[in-house]
């Protein structure tokens, strides 16, 4: 049962909603403060750029973010108001480097209707009061006393019902607001009011202006000496004050954001809906405004906020594309743009749709999102893994092996890098300029391929080639000894450590040598039945230079054998089964536990627990890491041992809490790897990949890596087809010509590796792609892309016509094979029992895939179900259909085979306006709704009456604070069947703010434990601004607010790991569970994402 769910953020929100600049952390320090819906980030401006200082979650969706400075303060305070009517005033504590809460409170009212146009929060420039417009017809005032403390709030009636913007005017003896509003006849006006704090009422203000631009939407108050207001319309910009009225026409555009450049307010940056940045200048003679001028500067991401930092540097925050740090140049570039983009900050929002694919068939999903909007639309490939920070690279083709060597046994750094090719061996070394340069070691044979190299004791090096083993002095480079393989018995594979060499020759001969000071001694020889494919004598015992065991992988009988050293006695033999030979074996110890790892030629990896005294192999486990042969190597990072498995899907194997874990490395195919810890590149790895040798460091934790594919158009739906290795997307392109905006809609086919458009199908005029599905039908082995569309006619309220298009990919082209007209928009498509289930306006319709007499195929409707307002989201499981309605929550339908009919089984009678649904298991369904909540409902099959059975019971409720557009089953991490987390089913969701989250259904005992931890964490971790976590997570809608239940906040629980030791102990004491146990259990959960 998936009743108990754990919700955690894998990728934090990146949609920048607010930003402001001021002296927050110190009187001399200039800060940029960014709000990303539920988080704030504080940055410091330094000559080197923006330096992050703090990134904290806010228990609320930020509606207002304003800096202000009360009288007598030397630095700014931060005012935050949330959409759920909480506010707080924050102050920087320079000693503790954290924010302090100076004031907080609740500004909700029972009376009034929440505003449709968003909440407005403004602060009087002279710091006399804070004004809030939260409900239609009410203006809330929080006055300051003369010490800068907040006093009791009160409401003033605002007669203007449709308020578009309110701002405070500068330079007024009494606090004065200017209100932009729309009247009954849709005309727009501005009006001013003085706030009389004594009477708690408005007094008519000094001026008003009627009948403005019909698109006027934004007010910009202009500071002294002008003290007027700019009214930004779609076609005109007006400067207005008691004494002046100046207007200029502008190119039609919707201005979304502004940033003030000068303190005197004579220049402003305006960002519009198409991403164009303009400079607005108020021309003036002394204090008299003489006119306005506007100039196009260039193009940026579509701005949601603009903050002018300093010295022509500007921060452009965006909701639809990446946020940017730009510089405004004095001279235009060749394209005529004054804008230079210095840095881009990734933004995944809005994630309109996404799909989870396992392109490498590894059991690890990667998420491909439809991100961004308008011109900033893109696909983003989000993948969890360990990153390699490339530091140097050289082009080298055909690398067959790599080893790093030291110039002296006790040297801490590696000096040489031996690179072996098919017919030669090259030696690279760091020169004095810290560059990698080709060099020579005199005693090494460089005309042939090297099979193995290693440092040996007594300042010696070992090189194994197909004909001999050479012992070379590491200081002088001279050859000190050589062991020759007998004629006709060339060496196939070899391995060595500081004191031992083990090699195998043709014909199954195993030879064991020991290294002395200048001598190589053949100690033992054994003949095996078959040829040997791989060897290892990595020391895992107490002596780091000597191994008591040797692991040998065999051809023909497909086995691994363990021999004792030095006597080469066979002590264990393990047959692997199957037909794939072992290609690499490795003895290694993780957290003191010895393991034998054995990699096969087909990308599978076996691991065994190894008993070092008996050589016994137990606890065999098998995982798939890739499809190509794997080469295993150890390396150490932060003084713990890791194993690097080089293959087509490079993977790092490590251990935590005595469990083996596997992390993807964010690289394509890697053929060889060796640690290369040189003075210039400490703790680095040398990595050989396709035609290239790279030296880089490796991240110590895995994280999400995002690759961006800019489309220049807005992708709305995506799905993947395994068979053709393609993605198909529904996208729309905006053509913003000067006369009229038009949209073009396409179905595009993309290659799943290169993400190039390989085929395009244009939809008709007014036809929108609404849904897309990869499916196959019964009695037909082909895979099809089905696309649902709608004809959106400007005069129609609701689409009355649409199509279902069935495409096949032939020769990497989209071929339309069938088409079916529908009576409305096809909001959703699902594969259902070898048929196609479509949600068309208020109807669920099932189509059969029929073979016509002429051999062509067509969709034929079989049955349908009415009874929805709009069936927007549909998921299926077996014969069950779960429908998320526009406004009638979730209902459950069942398809009856015998009758060939769809019937309603049950529904949830709550009035939830849905945004996504998913089926967790047979009985539990998950929904996301319009007020940023999640909930689960349960099918009640055991109900006593029809009434009870016909009702979906709400079992879980939670306020996520994010608008979920899509749920998908899948996982961002590798799911191994043997690990605990591998058994926990997970769902990934994507939101408007660019959040990728994971919902995991926990077993009950784990849930109960974590719930206790959450309750205790709430007491220890206090929300920023004194906001309550419990209130934040309570289910909140127009009708009700109830405590969250059967959902846990993973972000809070996982923040346990960031606590100081003393606070961890505090919690450990209350829960009577040791800190280590708590950490272990929380760490387990962190591995879900």
């Amino acid at each position, binding site marked *: 049962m998936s009743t108990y769910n754990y919700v955690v953020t894998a990728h934090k929100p990146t*949609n920048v909603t607010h930003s402001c600049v001021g002296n927050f952390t110190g009187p001399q320090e200039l800060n940029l403060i960014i709000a990303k819906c539920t988080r704030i980030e504080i940055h410091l401006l330094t000559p080197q750029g923006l330096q992050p200082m703090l990134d904290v979650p806010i228990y609320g969706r930020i509606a207002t973010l304003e800096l202000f400075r009360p009288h007598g303060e030397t630095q700014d305070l931060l005012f935050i108001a949330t959409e759920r009517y909480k506010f707080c005033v924050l102050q920087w504590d320079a000693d503790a480097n954290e924010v302090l809460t100076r004031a907080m409170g609740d500004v909700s009212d*029972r*009376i009034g*209707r929440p505003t*449709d*146009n*968003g909440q407005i929060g403004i602060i009087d420039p002279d710091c006399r009061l804070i004004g809030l417009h939260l409900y239609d*017809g009410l203006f809330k005032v929080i006055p300051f006393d003369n010490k800068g403390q907040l006093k009791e709030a009160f409401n003033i*009636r605002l*007669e203007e*019902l449709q308020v578009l913007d309110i701002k405070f005017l500068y330079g007024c003896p009494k606090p004065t607001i200017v209100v932009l509003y729309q009247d*009954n006849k849709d005309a727009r006006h501005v009006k001013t*009011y003085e706030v009389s704090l004594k009477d708690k*009422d408005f*007094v*008519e*203000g000094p001026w008003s202006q009627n009948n403005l631009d019909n698109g006027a939407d934004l007010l910009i108050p202009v500071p002294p000496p002008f003290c007027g207001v700019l009214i930004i319309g779609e076609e005109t910009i007006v400067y207005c004050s008691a004494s002046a009225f100046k207007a200029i026409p502008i190119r039609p555009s919707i201005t979304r954001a502004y940033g003030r450049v000068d303190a005197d307010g004579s220049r402003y940056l305006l960002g519009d809906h198409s991403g164009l940045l303009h400079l607005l200048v108020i021309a003036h003679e002394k204090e008299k405004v003489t006119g306005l001028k506007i100039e196009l500067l260039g193009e940026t991401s579509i701005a949601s906020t603009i903050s002018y930092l300093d010295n022509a540097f500007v921060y452009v925050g965006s909701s*639809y594309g990446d946020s940017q740090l730009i510089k405004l140049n004095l001279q235009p570039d060749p394209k005529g743009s004054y804008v230079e983009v210095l840095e881009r900050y990734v933004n995944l*929002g*809005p994630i*309109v749709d996404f799909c989870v694919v396992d392109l490498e068939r590894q059991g690890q999903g990667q998420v491909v999102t439809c991100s961004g*909007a308008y011109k900033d639309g893109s696909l983003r490939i989000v993948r969890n893994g360990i990153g390699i920070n490339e530091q140097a690279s050289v082009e080298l083709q055909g690398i067959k092996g790599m080893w790093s060597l030291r110039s002296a046994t006790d040297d801490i750094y590696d000096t040489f890098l031996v690179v072996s090719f098919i017919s030669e061996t090259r030696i690279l070394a760091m020169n004095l300029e810290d560059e990698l340069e080709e060099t020579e070691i005199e005693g090494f044979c460089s005309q042939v391929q090297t099979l193995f190299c290693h440092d040996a004791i007594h300042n010696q090096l070992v090189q194994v080639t197909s004909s001999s083993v050479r012992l070379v002095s590491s200081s002088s480079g001279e050859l000190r000894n050589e062991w020759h393989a007998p004629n006709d018995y060339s060496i196939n594979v070899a391995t060595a450590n500081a004191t031992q060499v083990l090699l195998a020759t043709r014909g199954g001969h195993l030879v064991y040598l020991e290294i002395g000071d200048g001598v190589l001694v053949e100690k033992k020889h054994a003949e095996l039945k078959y040829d040997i494919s791989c060897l290892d004598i990595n020391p895992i015992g107490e002596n780091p230079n000597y191994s008591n065991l040797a692991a040998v992988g065999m051809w023909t009988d497909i086995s691994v054998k363990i021999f004792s050293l030095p006597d080469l006695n066979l002590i264990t033999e393990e047959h692997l089964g199957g037909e794939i030979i072992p290609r690499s074996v490795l003895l290694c110890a993780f957290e003191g536990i010895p393991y034998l790892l054995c990699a096969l030629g087909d990308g599978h990896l076996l691991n065994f627990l190894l008993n070092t005294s008996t050589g016994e192999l137990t606890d065999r486990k098998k995982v798939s890491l890739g499809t190509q042969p794997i080469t295993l190597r150890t390396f150490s990072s932060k003084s713990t041992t890791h194993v690097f498995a080089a293959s087509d899907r490079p993977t790092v194997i490590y251990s935590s809490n005595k469990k083996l874990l596997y992390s993807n490395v964010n690289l394509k195919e890697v053929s060889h790897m060796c640690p290369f810890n040189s003075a210039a590149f400490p703790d680095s790895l040398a990595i050989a990949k396709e035609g290239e040798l790279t030296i880089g460091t490796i991240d110590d934790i895995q994280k999400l890596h995002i690759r961006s594919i800019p489309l220049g158009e*807005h992708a*709305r739906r995506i799905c993947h087809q395994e068979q053709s290795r393609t993605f198909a997307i529904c996208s729309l392109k905006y053509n913003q010509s000067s006369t009229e905006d038009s949209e073009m809609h396409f179905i595009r086919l993309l290659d799943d590796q290169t993400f190039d458009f390989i085929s395009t199908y244009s939809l008709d005029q007014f036809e*929108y792609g609404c849904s897309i599905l990869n499916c196959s039908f019964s009695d037909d082995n082909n895979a099809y892309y089905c696309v649902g569309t*709608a004809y959106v006619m400007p005069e129609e*309220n*609701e689409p009355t016509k649409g199509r279902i298009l069935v495409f096949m990919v032939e020769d990497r082209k989209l071929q339309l094979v069938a088409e079916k007209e529908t*009576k*409305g*928009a096809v*909001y959703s498509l699902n594969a259902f029992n070898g048929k196609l289930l479509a949600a068309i*306006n*208020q*109807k669920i*319709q099932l189509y059969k895939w029929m073979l016509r007499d002429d051999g062509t195929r067509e969709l034929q*409707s*079989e*049955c*349908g*179900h*009415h009874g929805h*307002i*709009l069936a*927007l989201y549909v998921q299926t499981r077996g014969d069950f259909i779960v429908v998320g309605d*526009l*406004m009638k929550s979730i209902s459950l339908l069942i398809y009856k085979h015998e009758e*060939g*009919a*769809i*019937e309603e089984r049950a529904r949830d*009678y*709550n*009035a939830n*306006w849905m*945004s996504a649904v998913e089926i967790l298991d047979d009985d539990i369904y998950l929904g996301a709704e*319009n007020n*940023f909540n999640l909930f689960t409902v349960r099918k009640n099959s055991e109900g006593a009456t029809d009434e009870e059975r016909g009702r979906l019971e709400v079992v879980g409720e939670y306020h996520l604070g994010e608008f979920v*557009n899509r749920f998908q089953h899948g996982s961002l991490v590798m799911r191994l069947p043997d690990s605990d987390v591998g058994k926990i089913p997970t769902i990934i969701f994507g939101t*408007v703010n660019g959040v990728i989250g994971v919902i995991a259904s926990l077993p009950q005992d784990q849930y109960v434990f974590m719930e206790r931890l959450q309750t205790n964490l709430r007491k220890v971790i206090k929300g920023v601004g004194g906001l309550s976590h419990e209130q934040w997570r309570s289910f909140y809608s127009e009708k009700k607010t109830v405590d969250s239940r059967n959902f846990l906040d993973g972000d809070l629980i996982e923040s346990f790991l960031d606590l100081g030791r003393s606070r961890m102990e505090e919690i450990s004491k209350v829960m009577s569970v040791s800190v280590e146990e708590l950490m272990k259990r929380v760490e387990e959960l962190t591995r879900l994402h």
Partner: protein
Amino acid sequence: MWKEIGDRQSGKLRPNSFISRIRSNRASSLQLSNHKEIVSPHRGAINSLQVDLTEGRYLLSGASDASLAVYDIQHATDYEGGSFDHHINVWDTNTSQVVMDFKMPGKVYRTGMSSLATSHMLIAAATEDVQVRLCDMASGAFSHTLSGHRDGVMAVEWSACSEWVLMTGGCDGAIRFWDIRRAGCFSVLDQSHSQLGRRPPLLERSTTKVTTSRSFTPGQTSSSKTRPPQKKATSSSASKHSGSSRKQKQRLHPGLLSSQDRATAHYGAVIGLKATEDGMYLLSAGSDSRLRLWDIESGCNTLVHFEITRLQTTKAIQLAVTQDSALVFVPCMTSLKAFDLWSGKTSMTLQGHYEHVNCCCYNAYDQELFTGGNDRQILIWSPPKLISQDVDEWDGRTGKPPALDEDNWSD
């Protein structure tokens, strides 16, 4: 619709504006429902309709034949099957048994329970009697009798923002506000007390002139009413005082100024009251065929002129308001009209009943309107559903084809 859904998905349209846009679109497209129908079991005029507040699933109707019926409006089926007999009965809807019975001194016009009340279970009863009685369901007895009206009381309405505030409208034309925790009524609405001039302009201009001429305009548009202009001017200046000193007024209650106590809201009986959901405005209907919109906090008449020609005068009527306070539905003789709340303009006229419409009830969950009239019918008005009727799309087995019985109502 698709566009709005797309804009919501990309974050361009705020989720709450999405809801209000769709709700108002749907509310403005109401028509006789083509997919739901109620077969009324009543043998008398339907006087009252109410949708349950928790799920919006059941509709309750009360008729003059002393019968009650409950309908499941989600599944559009008849589910089962207070009054002029001087009683108020409290029913347990699960068992359909009368659990309580209050004997009233006269005909009961209307009853009301507060939708927000958490600390009381009171039913306010408007009867022929001059007193408003509060029946306590906890004890089964009358807990309050509110005296003030000089004639029978036809309308009761609980405040939408305070569980203690009750508004009543009487045949004496008065609308009284009661705080049930205190004795006496604390406010009486005065139709001549308008909002104009409440906020004096910053500069001392010739204020009185402006107010008189402006306040006169609505009067002029309706030529049926003639009011002496001086009286208007004085009362509006008087109201200025009372408006700015609300506190003082509160202190005066329970013994309101006698001049205020005699104020009237309508020339004639108040036959219907409805508060907007946000708790800021009150609508009243009078037998003078007027609908007035009141600002509750200040008690001002907003002077919105509703284009009403005639209301029935003898019976209480039930009004309904959409959730976003954009439309008010008013039974106007045999039709039901929807008016824009802020301009008073007619936005829809719903014709369907053969006789007078008595009551209407708006279901905010589904944007559906129910009306009941003297013709014993309950009609459902809903946003149109596109129902495909081609043979290919339609499967006869899944249900009966939608019978569009609009011909019944062609007029």
